[in-house]
């Protein structure tokens, strides 16, 4: 399922390991737009949502095999951790993969992420090469 070249290669669109469906959840327009574009640039097909509800709805659509959720943890009016918890509650710990975007790398954030079954963390602002390598790493680990 995750056939493709070795993760070391950096060519943006060459690798089917990244060609997958991704949901990105961010509250504000700017972050959502930038994250979506960034993911598309590295070869992903993206659905951008702005609420936990939309995110869960999208995941429940059996015709769209989403593999990863990119989840902004620091959103006003919405607790990113709560969304992660709900995803794990409804869909279990193996799917989808959750990669959290966070402004903070404090230990307690990291720990909470681990507890919630988050598969990866990226510090904001997100750089393209960081998103690329973190996605590859998470997808690679999941396939092992």
């Amino acid at each position, binding site marked *: 399922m995750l056939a493709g070249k070795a993760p070391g290669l950096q060519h943006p669109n060459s690798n089917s390991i990244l060609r997958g469906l991704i949901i990105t959840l961010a509250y504000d*327009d*700017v*972050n959502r737009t930038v994250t979506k574009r960034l993911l598309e640039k590295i070869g992903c097909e993206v659905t951008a949502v702005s609420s936990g509800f939309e995110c869960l709805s999208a995941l429940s659509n059996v015709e769209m095999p989403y593999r990863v959720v990119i989840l902004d943890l620091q959103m006003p009016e919405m607790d990113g951790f709560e969304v992660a918890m709900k995803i794990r509650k409804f869909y279990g710990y193996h799917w989808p993969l959750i990669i959290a975007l966070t402004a903070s790398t404090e230990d307690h954030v990291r720990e909470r992420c681990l507890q919630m079954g988050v598969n990866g963390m990226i510090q*904001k602002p997100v750089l*393209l090469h960081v998103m690329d390598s973190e996605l590859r790493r998470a997808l690679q680990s999941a396939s092992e």
Partner: protein
Amino acid sequence: MGKCMQGYLDEQFMELEELQDDVNPNFVEEVATLYFKDSARLINSIDQALERGSFDFNRLDNYMHQFKGSSTSIGASKVKTECTMFREYCRMGNAEGCLRTFQQVKKEHATLRKKLEHYFQLARQAGPKETARRSK
């Protein structure tokens, strides 16, 4: 990026330029437009909250958290710095500090807006040849 932008925009802005290509030739300007729409709304909310005189520092901090978030995404470094200071004053419950810093936030925001408007105008005048040169 140009000398006039130095200090106002950081590497994050350059990341945005990297995301622009033939398929999305106006990406940076689109993001900037979104940013100014969002930030105008937030500035308005904060203005109103401050004018009311009731210093709900939690609420003010919330607004500023959002503002800082999108300012970071577009690479607005000076605006971001002022946002951070404002949040510090919120944490300390310092009303006067908040008022003072907010004036700075608005000032940097307005300056950035003018600079970006000018920047995009130049980019449009330069035309597709310039865009092709800039994108990889």
